């Protein structure tokens, strides 16, 4: 077995471990309703399994690093997988400070979704383009991802806080948006399901089209085309023809992926609602009803405080040093740079609001969720939609 196969297997083991640990964390919370003592046992097993998963994923990371000769953070698959790993790492760190098991019940599924999302992108080891051939790739990307992961834990805490405090029996804006967050998570599952199913079916259609500058290009669809590219012509078509043609400005292939994900996600969501006969927020609510709100609020704040300096160092300072070396200017207003700055400004505002305006509790929790939304936007949308120097994942 070659190193890269070992690496892939380790990642798989980690994935399974996180899945099992999630269930164990759920069990530990359920058990605590009956007797206090079992909790400790379940909780301990859960964290041990989490750590086994984390070590296994670290094994994936290191073996892949050795195999490819560069830190495995150079494309969408590698970076996002590492991001998932760092989220688990940040959770373990925060867990050992505060020992709140409910965190695991949210942090691990989020990490699982992120890793599943990552594995939908091509996972081949590819060589580095010249601008990435620098040890700053390792330093900058890993520090930035670490900072983002710690910041993500504040969103995890925020979600737990809101699940507990929001009254799900009465209609309210909070109830709506909380369920919207849940729906978004299901849509990610929808993306994973849709991509995997069409992958297994080996779906592939090829079209030629005119891009926004009027040049003729070709594009491969790996999902049945709902939308066609600008003035598309089928080169090799299977199953169905595009239903609607899009103007050149819109990448119809990506739109197709988004709509398929939404479709599958919505069906899944409806199924869950039909089977459980309540909101997804309501399914999770019993698990968090015993959490200490003040403690969860502090965890949220603390993770921002811990993550903010790390993020600043990785995503701004190291980024500027590298940009100065590679592109001759430390700052160029590239979309990824701008969104890193926006993330930074947002968390700066978060801290000032909290310190000076006393935005704690619910407000702070919502801000933490919005912050994580910005981080995800920078990861997904900026790479896939807004083209720029950082769009290493145009696939």
């Amino acid at each position, binding site marked *: 077995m070659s190193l890269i196969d070992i690496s892939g297997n380790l990642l798989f083991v980690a994935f399974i471990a996180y899945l099992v640990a999630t269930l164990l964390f759920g069990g530990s919370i359920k058990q605590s309703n009956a007797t206090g003592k079992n909790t400790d046992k379940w909780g301990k097993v859960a964290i041990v399994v989490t750590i086994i998963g984390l070590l296994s994923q670290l094994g994936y990371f290191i073996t892949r690093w050795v195999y490819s000769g560069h830190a495995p953070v150079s494309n969408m698959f590698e970076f996002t997988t590492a991001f998932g790993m760092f989220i688990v790492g940040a959770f373990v760190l925060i867990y050992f400070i505060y020992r709140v098991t409910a965190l695991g019940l949210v942090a691990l599924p989020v990490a699982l979704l992120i890793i599943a999302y990552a594995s939908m992108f091509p996972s081949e080891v590819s060589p580095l383009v*010249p601008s990435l051939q620098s040890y700053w790739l390792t330093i900058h990307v890993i520090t930035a991802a670490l900072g983002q992961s710690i910041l993500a834990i504040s969103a995890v805490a925020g979600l737990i806080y809101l699940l507990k405090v929001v009254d799900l029996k009465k209609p309210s804006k909070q109830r709506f948006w909380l369920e919207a967050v849940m729906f978004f998570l299901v849509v990610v599952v929808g993306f994973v399901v849709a991509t995997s199913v069409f992958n297994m079916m080996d779906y592939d259609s090829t079209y030629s089209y005119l891009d926004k500058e009027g040049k003729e290009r070709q594009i491969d669809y790996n999902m049945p085309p709902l939308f066609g590219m600008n003035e598309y012509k089928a080169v090799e078509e299977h199953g169905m023809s595009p239903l609607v043609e899009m103007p050149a400005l819109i990448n119809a292939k990506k739109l197709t992926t988004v709509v398929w994900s939404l479709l599958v996600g919505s069906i899944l969501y409806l199924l869950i609602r039909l089977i459980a006969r309540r909101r997804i927020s309501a399914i999770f609510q019993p698990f968090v009803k015993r959490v200490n709100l003040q403690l969860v609020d*502090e965890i949220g704040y603390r993770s921002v*405080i811990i993550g903010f300096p790390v993020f600043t160092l990785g995503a701004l300072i190291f980024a500027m040093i590298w940009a100065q070396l590679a592109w001759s200017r430390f700052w160029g207003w590239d979309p990824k740079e701008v969104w890193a700055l926006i993330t930074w400004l947002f968390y700066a505002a978060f801290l000032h609001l909290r*310190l000076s305006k006393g935005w704690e509790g619910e407000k702070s929790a919502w801000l933490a969720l919005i912050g994580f939304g910005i981080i995800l936007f920078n990861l997904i949308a*900026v790479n896939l939609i807004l083209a720029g120097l950082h769009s290493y994942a145009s696939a």
Partner: protein
Amino acid sequence: MENIICACGHSNPYGTKLCEKCGRPLTEEGKQTKVVDMRYDGTAIRSKTYNTTFVDKIWNFFSSVKVGIALIIITLVAASIGTILPQAIYVNAPEPSKAEYYEKVYGVLGKLYNNLGLSHLYNTWWFQILVGMLAISIIVASLDRGLPLHKSLKNQRVKRHESFMKRQRIIAEGQVPNADETLDKVEQKMSELKYRVRRDGSALLAERGRFARYGPYINHVGLIIFLTGVMLRLVPGFYVDETIWIREGETRAIPGMDGYFIKNNKFILETHDEKQQGGEASQGVNVMAKNYQTDITLYKQPEGALPGDSDNLEKLRDYSIRVNHPLKENGFALYQMNYRLNELRQMNFNLVNKASEESQGQIEIDLTNPKKEYDLGNGSSVQILVYTPDFDGFENGEPQTKTSIPNNPAFLFRMTTPETPKGEVSFVEIRKPPLEPLGENKYRMKFAGAEMRNSSNFTIRKDSTIPILFVGGVIFMIGVVIGSYWNHRRLWLQVDPDGRVLMAAHVNKNMFSMKKDLDTVTTFAGLPPYKDQLDKPEDDNKSAKPGTKEKEGDSTL
């Protein structure tokens, strides 16, 4: 404005909220609340005190954290708008036609975006004013609060009044059997916990991590230094940003670097072996570049040479400029930015008789520096009447060139032979049959090969602001780390000789760790259990029981 005399007799500056000496609340509001606002330790903050003159109003505007946050949010939203469409510098079109590009590619939206100036948003006056206001806000707010806070922290008294202690978030009241023993034990434990302990009669103050309070002010100083560095770029001489295209074999003066010359020896483009990637993955994927490199030689003019004089150049060194590995010299850096492969350098033509295909001789045209006339020596000659390096069609009968780069050279030749002494005119474009505008010719210019070469594009950059930016960045990081990873913890203890105990504690963040310390010292010194005055009754599961199991998290509560 008059000073405020506290009940303890201390005279406080106007605007003070908590007496500097004993801590008694001095405002009505302070007297009413259960837990006092400890943000700046109750000192007189200028912006909260004066609001009459114009200067006061300006000062108060910029010192307001609310205004600061609003500025952050506005900057954030503005910055995000700049990413909706690509900024003009990233648009793949030559400068004059960028406006056209926006309209052509993005339609009405693009036109609007460009016309509103959003295509160069980060250079607009209003965006820069926004950042400037943010900077002013940082300076004013820091001075407004930082100085009084510093004064107050420096002059802390050990003994505080009951009304101060009882309005802290954490308080404990009760009885102990032996007053002195309790004080000693608390001093011992708190010292072990790395607190600095001061005692004054029956009072005790244990304090740890005071420097953490300075974190925010330090990081604001760092930010201001950074922004100052950014602004210094506008001062001439601090910042050089030039660009140069240089072909293989050429030696040219480096723009912006007086006296320096550079020779392009060779441009190298290496690609990854496509087979290596294997399988379907590489299908349709462009060949991936592995290395962009230009081997150069750097020269310097001798002292006192005239500008541009390239005689007697002194060789400094050879270097291979690669991406991520710029050439550095005397504060300047040269970066590999772009390249052009296979640029035409020279074209060769034979002057041939159309009927016999007999050649009268060959001319070699240096495309960057063509001669006006080529004498073939046998009575024949070729004149270049017009040369367009990058032919782009005719306008009013004149051939036009798009650029000065020989991408698509075209020539208007006059061919003179003994047979045609008056000369024949022919328009020759690469890979096209020649045009004969003045009637049929007997001779033609027959293409006889070309020579190619590569050229490299460098950016020449000198940025003397970098050290300032670096210092600013480092100070910012130090401040942010101090402010984030450390916290200021204080414990006030008052044990009367009769054994009555009053304890209060304050921490600027991370109450969780403070409570751990409190649990330790409470147990050790047998202090009465403390209570958190902010604990809400509804969260009062078992957790609110002071100092018990809270740290173990939710599931055990």
